[in-house]
């Protein structure tokens, strides 16, 4: 079953447009939402949640239209934008005491379990926590009301590699029962290589790709060749970089011709992002 579906989401800003954003996510999977800074990841997430007014498009979660069933949906999803950046000097215990009242399915035993697992002390205040701990606390709040879908904006940025790995393991655990899903935005592509099943890639407000990670990686190839080989290939390349020994570039696998006699490698997600960004003129 589709747990999340976004169709033709549009939002116009004077300096930026979200253009026809569409993607969907099935139950039991993790989708990574990637794109460079300012590509529209947070705007998409905020438009999906009604925090930013979309100009058009539909969003449904848990099989319900978001606009019509906002409160019911919010009872069963968890979302976070970065770590806890509110009530910095209030004890975590007090914040939790306020938050728990809002959820019908709040489970104190889950809350206690994750607080213990993350070594979070609820006598502390958010200002006393590291940025990683703040993200973890934010995640505990999302997990404790038995959310079926998590929408997380950059949950792993600011975390050390060990904490990131722990978090990714937790994500895997979360979807294990096949009924829950996670959509998380990030620009740390190695996180996705570890745990994402699907990738949605946004650049300059446009969805460039939304498919399984393996399909995505198979759909592109990194090619290397000499400077002489570049000119005839240029039109087929998504983008290329020239260097002293020749060039390297990204090409759609379907566009490859055995007669090209190029050095061919499987790209990483980072390669795909970098070359697309180059195509869009973002890293000129």
């Amino acid at each position, binding site marked *: 079953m589709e747990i999340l579906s976004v169709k033709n989401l549009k939002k116009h800003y004077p300096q930026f447009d979200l253009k026809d954003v569409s993607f969907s996510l099935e139950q039991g999977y993790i989708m990574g939402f990637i794109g460079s800074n300012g590509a529209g990841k947070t705007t998409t997430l905020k438009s999906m949640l009604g925090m930013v*007014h979309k100009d058009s498009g539909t969003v449904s979660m848990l099989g319900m239209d978001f606009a019509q069933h906002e409160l019911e949906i919010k009872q069963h999803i968890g979302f976070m934008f970065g770590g806890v950046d509110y009530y910095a000097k209030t004890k975590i215990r007090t914040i939790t005491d*306020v938050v728990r009242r809002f959820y019908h399915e709040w489970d104190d035993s889950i809350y206690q379990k994750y607080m213990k697992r993350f070594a979070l002390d609820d006598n502390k205040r958010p200002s006393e926590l590291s940025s990683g701990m703040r993200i973890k606390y934010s995640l505990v709040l999302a997990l404790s009301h038995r959310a079926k879908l998590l929408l997380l904006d950059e949950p792993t940025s600011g975390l050390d590699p060990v904490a990131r790995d722990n978090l990714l393991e937790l994500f895997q655990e979360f979807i294990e029962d096949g009924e829950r899903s996670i959509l998380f935005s990030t620009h740390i592509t190695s996180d996705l290589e570890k745990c994402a099943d699907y990738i949605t890639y946004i650049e300059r407000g446009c969805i460039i790709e939304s498919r399984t990670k393996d399909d995505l990686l198979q759909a592109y190839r990194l090619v290397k060749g000499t400077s002489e080989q570049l000119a005839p290939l240029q039109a087929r390349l998504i983008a290329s970089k020239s260097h002293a020994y020749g060039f390297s570039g990204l090409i759609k696998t379907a566009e490859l011709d055995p007669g090209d006699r190029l050095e061919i490698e499987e790209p990483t997600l980072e390669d795909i992002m970098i070359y697309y960004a180059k195509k869009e003129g973002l890293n000129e």
Partner: protein
Amino acid sequence: MNNLLYKELRLVIHPFYYLTSLFAALILIPYWVYFVALMYFLFIAIPNIFTNAKAQNDTGFSVLLPVKKSDVVKARVTSMAALEILQMAVAAIFVAISVAISPKGNVLIDANLAYLGCGLLLYGLFNLFFFPMYYKTGHKIGIPLMVGLTVFTIIGGIIEVLVVTVPAVAKVLDGNTPSALVSQIPVLAAGIALFAGLTWLAYRMAAKNFEAVDL
């Protein structure tokens, strides 16, 4: 809605601000402008509570909760109206003391039931201007507060001037004898009704404005 009110009391409003209602003791000053006693709430509690909420990113916190945006506004307007009612209740106690200890009354409006009715009207007018303007952004307080205070001051000033210069107005609003107080009951009742009506209108307009804000 109750949960949001609990949030206001637990996280947003520092208990100290309940004490600003004690400024109503200024009503005991003989020969004074008693509407000023009601303004300390607007000088101290309102700006501090709102700037504190902004500094703590209360809006960012509230929108993460499973609530409607209009309920976030309703909870804030309701909690501030409750503080205004608390202020008026404490003022009523000091009005009663004033009636008991200074029967001579005041040059301007006396501390009486009509004064309480007018005070409620002034708070209602403050709410009507302040909340809808504030919720056009949800974080800028300066101009909405200045406009609200200006409206309070001008209308309060007009009432004071009319009490002194127009005998017909003085007859309705002034005096603290037992018979005058009885005749002022309708003014107090009108004040209560106007406060409720204006504050409700303020909430409706504020919620509509806040709905349009991208967070």
